[in-house]
């Protein structure tokens, strides 16, 4: 039986158990979020023992070199010792500059930070609050251009970060940012011309907004079509901005749909709408964001419509 040494105490791993699950079983409050090896919220550093390559899936090289790994996917068979990475080694201080209500359950949080250039629109970052709570959010704007980083947070009644934001976060409150992470962003150094279809539901709009603004800023040649979906009319947000953007850019169009409408939006399943849009997908790349179940479905829809798997970019939210 292998043990995990954390903060000078030893915890016995059960057969096939991952490190995070073991700590939680022993009532240790270790930061985590997706528990699937994606969000990197539970990032840990191995201080003794042997690291296995698959524990470091998706980590950047500098992290790998320092023996950082993801406890939620690490299943050691030999004793290890771990510690939480120091904030000053992995994260950057930022301050809450503004909180703006976007809809009944979504707020925009604007953060100021010294180095704006490292935060790529569409990628996601981990926000760490003063209590050490960590959650992942996508970069929804052009940080360099705007002078701040904008994140869209869905407010959950029982959500820890939601409640912190609602009741405790003050303007200028200090937070830490770690990242950015993810595969879903605009990358076109050769200035190639192609059509872009972006589809997502809820706050899946955030990364898509970042990608769209990024593409437009770089004078993307080719059509850019955004399809934003929700359950009800009020799930659609940022509409005025998007309509204005469509007015000012001939190659950008904004479409939306909801499952149950009061008459203010098209009533349709986003997957069916995407299928219609992709009736003849020529020279097209797809960007898919949002909750995991919807993303999976939309990715498959795009793929079956004929978009090559390498041209489908996606980071799903795992809640």
């Amino acid at each position, binding site marked *: 039986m292998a043990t995990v040494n954390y903060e000078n105490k030893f915890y016995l791993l059960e057969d096939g158990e991952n490190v995070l699950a073991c700590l939680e079983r022993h009532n240790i409050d270790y930061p985590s979020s997706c528990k699937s090896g994606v969000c990197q919220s539970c990032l840990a550093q191995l201080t003794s023992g042997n690291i296995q390559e698959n524990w470091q899936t998706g980590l950047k090289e500098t992290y790998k070199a320092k023996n950082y790994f993801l406890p939620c996917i690490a299943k050691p068979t030999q004793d290890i010792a771990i510690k939480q990475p120091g904030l000053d080694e992995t994260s950057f201080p930022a301050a809450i500059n503004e909180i703006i209500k976007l809809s009944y359950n979504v707020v925009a949080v604007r953060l100021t930070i010294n180095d704006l250039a490292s935060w790529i629109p569409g990628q996601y970052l981990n926000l760490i609050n003063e209590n050490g709570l960590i959650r992942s959010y996508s970069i929804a704007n052009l940080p360099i251009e705007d002078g701040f980083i904008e994140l869209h947070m869905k407010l959950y009644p029982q959500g820890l970060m939601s409640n912190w934001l609602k009741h405790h976060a003050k303007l200028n409150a200090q937070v830490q940012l770690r990242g950015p992470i993810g595969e879903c962003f605009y990358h076109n150094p050769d200035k190639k011309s192609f059509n872009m279809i972006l589809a997502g539901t809820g706050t899946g709009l955030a990364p898509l907004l970042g990608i769209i603004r990024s593409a437009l800023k770089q004078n993307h040649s080719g059509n850019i079509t955004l399809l934003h979906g929700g359950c009800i009319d009020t799930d659609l947000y940022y509409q005025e901005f998007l309509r204005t953007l469509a007015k000012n850019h001939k190659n950008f169009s904004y479409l939306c749909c909801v499952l149950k409408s009061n008459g203010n939006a098209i009533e349709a399943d986003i997957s069916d709408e995407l299928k219609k849009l992709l009736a003849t997908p020529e020279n097209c790349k797809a960007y898919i964001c949002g909750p995991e*179940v919807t993303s*999976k479905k939309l*990715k*498959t829809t795009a*793929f079956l419509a004929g978009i*090559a*798997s390498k041209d489908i970019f996606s980071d799903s939210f795992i809640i």
Partner: protein
Amino acid sequence: MSDSLFNRLGGQEAVDTAVDIFYRKVLSDDRVNYFFDGVDMDKQINKQKGFLTMVFGGPNNYTGKDMREGHKHLVAKGLNDSHVDAIIELLGGTLAELGVAESDIQEVAAIANSVRDDVLDR
């Protein structure tokens, strides 16, 4: 090595080309597509690349045990010979579409067939 099946088919590049055509066929075929409900495409594409590399006779890390473990949950859902037949048929259709010679298609089918008992856990 120049005349190995894998090289004749076009190596890794052929795998990358074939995987989209093959997986699209699989997802569009009602005989087998329900086994892929709720599956993540990115992960699945990678697995399919591994599978194609193996049946093309290329370098792969699959073991019989992997095949057995990886399909046990599907066997529990009713995976049987008819589904393996369907997959081999779709594989053949993919290769035919890419202009692969019938004799090479037969060779690929034979390799795919060789893991049948592992896949069906018997």
